[in-house]
C-alpha cells in the first residue's frame, strides 16, 4: 500500500499529519508533504487509512496494489 496527495486539493488542514505523522509532514506553507513515497510498512497501513478518512478536502488516495489482485 502507498499513498498519494492531490496537491491541488490540499489546503493545509494538516489532519493527515495529525492522524499519521510518520507518513505526512508539512511544507513551509503548512501544506501536506509525503514523507514515505514508497510502499508503506504494514504497521502504518491503518494510520494511512485514518489519514485518508480525516482529510476534509479528500485530497488523499490510498493505492492498494494487493487489493487489485
Amino acid at each position, binding site marked *: 500500500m502507498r499513498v498519494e496527495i492531490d496537491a491541488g486539493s490540499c*489546503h493545509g488542514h*494538516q489532519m493527515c499529519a495529525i492522524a499519521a505523522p510518520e507518513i505526512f509532514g508539512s511544507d*513551509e*506553507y*503548512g501544506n501536506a508533504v509525503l514523507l514515505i513515497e514508497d510502499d508503506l510498512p504494514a504497521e502504518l497501513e491503518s494510520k494511512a487509512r485514518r489519514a485518508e*478518512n*480525516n*482529510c*476534509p478536502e479528500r485530497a488523499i488516495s490510498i493505492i492498494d496494489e494487493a487489493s487489485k489482485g
Partner: protein
Amino acid sequence: MTTIDPLTDYDIFDAEFVLDPFPVMDAIRESECPIAHTERWGGSWLPTRYEDIVAMAQEHDLFTSRSIIVTPPPPVQFEGPYAGVAAPPISSDPPEHHWHRRLILPFFAPQAVAKYEDGTRDLCNQLIDGFIDGGKADAAADYAQQIPVRVIATMLGVPTDMSDEFTSWVRGVLEVGLTDPKVRLESRMKILDYFRAQIDDRKANPRDDDMITTLLNSEVDGQKVPENYVHGVCNLMLIAGVDTTWSSIGASLWHLAQHPEHRAQLRDDPDLWPMAIEELLRAYAPVTMARQVDRDTEFQGCPMHAGDRILMAFPAANRDPRQFENPDEVILDREHNRHVAFGAGIHRCAGSNLARLELRVALQTWLARIPEFQLVDPATVTWAGGQVRGPRKCAVAF
C-alpha cells in the same frame, strides 16, 4: 419568547439559539429545506448539511468573501483613512487572495508555531497559579479568555499588558458589534489606530524576527506590498485569533468539567491528545463565517441573488449525521473525522495550527494541575453566539 419558524425566520442572535443552537440547526438540516433563509439582520441563508457547506466553501468564485460578517457593515466603514483596510486573506478573493495568504502561511505552519509552545505553557501555569489555591475559578474568564490574546500579542510583537484592551476591541467587533454598528465601527477604529501606530514604529525602528517588519519588507512581483495589506493582516490577527481560540478552550473545559470519563481517558492515554483535540474542535466548532453571493444563482433549489449573505455554519456541518456517526456525542478517539471547524477550501483558517497548539497546551496544563473539577452550577454558564460561539462565564470548582 415568541416561537419562530427556523426555516424562514431563524435568528442567530436569539438568546435561546446562542445558548444552544443545535436543536435549530438539526431541525433545519432534517427538514425538506436544509438551507434556511431569514430576513432578520439584513437577511441571510443558512446551509446546515456538511456536503452543502463544504461545496459552498470550495466554490469561492460564486460564494465570495466580500462580506465575512453576516450583518451589513456600518456605512462609514468604507470612508476615511482606513477605508481600504480589510482583514486579508480572510476577506480576500482570488486572484489577490493567493499572495495575501501565501505571505502569512509560513508564520503559521506547524513547525513555525512550535516555538510558541513553551511560552504558552508558562502562561497557562501562571494563570493557574493565580487561582488554584482558592479551589474555584472561572474557566472561561480567568483562563480561556486570557490565553490566545497574549499569544497573538507575542506573535505581533506588541505588549501583552494591552491584552484587556485588545480583548475589549475584539468583542466590540465580533460580539456586541455584530448587532450594534456604532460599537463595531468604534472598535474597528481602535484596532486600526493602534496598528497604524505599530506599523509607523516598525518603519522607523525595524525589528529582527518580527512579523510586522517582515510583512512590511515583503515583495510581490518585485514591488513592496501595500501598507494597507500589512495593516489588514494585523487587524485579522486580532479579530480572528483571539475570541475564536478562547471560545474553543472554554467550550472544551466546559465539556471536560462535565465528563470525568473523558478526563480519565486523556490521563490514561496521553497519545490520544491529537485526536481528542480534533474531536473537541468538531463538537464545539466556534466559528461561523459569512460569504456573499457573486451573481444570481440557484443552489440546491434555493434562488440566491447577487449580494445575498450566507452563513457558513461549520458547527452545523460538524454535527451532520450523514457525515459523522453519533454526531452529538464526543468520541475522543473518533476514527473518521473530516471536521470543518477551520472551514474548507482556500479560506481554511490560516491560524489553525496555532489554535490547535493553544487548545492542546491549555487543556493539558489545566488537567495536569486540576485533574478533577466540575461546574459550580450549569445554569450560570453564559455563552456568546452569533458568528463566534463559546462560554463567557463558566464557574468551576475543584
